[in-house]
């Protein structure tokens, strides 16, 4: 029997968030029970509209979408995506009008309801700042028992994209990230170490476009806009598939290499706040004799060819 993995995606679309949602929708192995939104790449209003438009584009009006945290736990919201994702948060392709209304519930309420009603354990896929998930764990720690694991896009062992040390999703709400990483639940971390290796070149994007179906063309257009920053500012060889990697990690664990170790979050640095401190070698234990929780499977490398092929197949499978 091929049982589907029930997931909740918590996101801030965002071009790569949109592609993550599409990939999850296309996969017969995953079942999206709910999508919650969080302020990040753009304001909470904009990312919620974007989420609904992406689901509308994929003709999935049945998945509940709930609006979540308007701002980080303690810090001021610094919208991340202005230069990368544009004013709407999802500039570039032509989007449909919203095909349905957001849920009357808040993201917190929808998370609680979905997890409580589920018979199986739920896998959380947070691909924006971790505000909603932290609030969930603070309000309802008992529900951790019903969570299988958390597949996060965020952080980086040896690099940042917002500051030299910090990746945006963690940097935007480091206190929330600290709560989530120290929650005791098993985490898969798709950070910049691996997402920078999960890229799609311009030539490959033309293959995607040429697949011809509506969603493939849509994804290619998302990549057209999103990748400008990767080429022009970051000097990368292609479009960096940050958020979709958190989905790919669930679907194709065998194409990734990883290290399972302790990850904590710096919240009080002058230059390094929002950095994920990844203890691959186990120094805390080795040098200071501290027992640490190997809480996170940190992804470091990916078989890029297989990744791109799987993504293209998924886009072709939709509509």
């Amino acid at each position: 029997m091929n049982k589907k993995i029930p997931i909740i995606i918590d996101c801030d679309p965002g071009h790569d968030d949109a592609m993550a949602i599409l990939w999850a929708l296309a996969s017969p192995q995953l079942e999206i029970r709910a999508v919650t939104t969080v302020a990040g790449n753009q304001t909470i209003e904009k990312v919620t509209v974007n989420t609904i438009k992406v689901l509308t584009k994929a003709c999935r009006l049945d998945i509940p979408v709930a609006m979540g945290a308007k701002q980080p736990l303690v810090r001021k919201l610094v919208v991340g995506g202005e230069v990368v994702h544009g004013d709407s948060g999802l500039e570039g392709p032509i989007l449909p009008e919203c095909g349905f209304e957001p849920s009357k519930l808040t993201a917190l309420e929808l998370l609680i309801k979905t997890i409580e009603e589920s018979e199986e354990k739920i896998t959380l896929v947070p691909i924006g700042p971790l505000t909603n998930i932290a609030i969930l764990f603070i309000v309802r720690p008992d529900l951790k028992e019903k969570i299988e694991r958390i597949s996060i896009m965020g952080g980086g062992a040896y690099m940042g994209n917002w500051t030299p040390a910090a990746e945006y999703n963690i940097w935007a709400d480091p206190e929330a990230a600290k709560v989530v990483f120290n929650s005791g639940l098993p985490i898969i971390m798709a950070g910049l170490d691996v997402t920078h290796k999960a890229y799609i070149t311009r030539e490959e994007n033309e293959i995607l476009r040429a697949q011809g179906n509506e969603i493939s063309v849509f994804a290619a257009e998302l990549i057209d806009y999103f990748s400008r920053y990767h080429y022009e500012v970051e000097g990368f060889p292609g479009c960096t598939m940050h958020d979709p990697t958190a989905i790919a990690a669930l679907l194709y664990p065998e194409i990734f290499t990883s290290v399972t170790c302790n990850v904590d979050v710096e919240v009080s640095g002058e230059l390094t706040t929002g950095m994920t401190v990844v203890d691959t070698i186990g120094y805390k234990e080795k040098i200071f004799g501290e027992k640490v929780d190997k809480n996170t499977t940190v992804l470091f490398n990916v078989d890029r060819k297989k990744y791109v092929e799987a993504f293209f197949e998924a886009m072709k499978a939709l509509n």
Partner: protein
Amino acid sequence: MADVILDIDSVGDDILAVLYGALHKKINLLGITTVNGACGSIEQAVNVALNTVELTGRNIPVYAGADKMLAPKMAGVDGDPVNFDEELRWKFGERLDKFNETVKKPEREAEKTHAVDYLIQAFNERPGEIILVTTGPVTNIALAVQKDPSIAGKVKEAYILGGAFQISGNITPVTEYNIWADPEAAKIVLNSDMKITLVPLDVCENNRYADGMMTRDHLAEMKYEGKGAIVDYIADKFPIYIDIWREFFQLGGFPMDDVITLALAVDPELCEYTEKVFVDVELEGDIARGQTVAYFGKQIVRNPKKEHKNTRIARSIDGKKFMDLFVKTIIGQ
């Protein structure tokens, strides 16, 4: 000949750096300054330096420097590397006694002048002519720059061992020992106008460059090809160092951080470098204090100091070429 002042904290590979500096035909070691660091007290650092110089038969002056970090660590905040000694003792037994052993009282004495005053004097007397190489925490250099800011521009070039960028640290997950031990000092030096080459763990304690680490094969080669007190000393003392770094840190051999840093002063082509950037040091931070942060301009948050780009970072090394050079220098070829 390049005139070099070497600032060391006198644990294992510092000794090799002193020997390398004394024996290398292109290096003229003007003086050795010492700092409290990995080996413990400043007396131990001075004695190790004096004994090592004595072994070479050269007459290189040694200056005692800072005994304390600029902002001494608060007990309990950073923790104590206790586990290290216990686990090693269990593994190696009494062989461990050769590791950072208490040394005999040297024949010669250190100079009367304090290391910091010597540095200020030396760079003022010959501005733009002397290369500075540091292999420990940069406390002495920071104190010198604070006392006389003009010397930052008078150092011909500084080669500083420190930091970690694309790999894990060696004392915490994100910090390298020298910077972690005195981050305030490192911040002062990196923020000065000094022309700096930073030599991080990326090229020294990274198995990608394991061919730049010392192994028992190198010891055998030195014994076979050369002879004399220095070769005997290295062959006797360093097997335990090789074992510790292989067993405990899973490196391919004994990492030659300090010797590499000095070697670059006269053979810079051993490494490839990044463009010049601004490197800063985290002073706050619960878990990242002592981390080096480099502004390459690819992130949203840019170099806060705009045009201040005084540091290039070594990013790869021709390890085999380096070790060949090391062995040849030690055996006197």
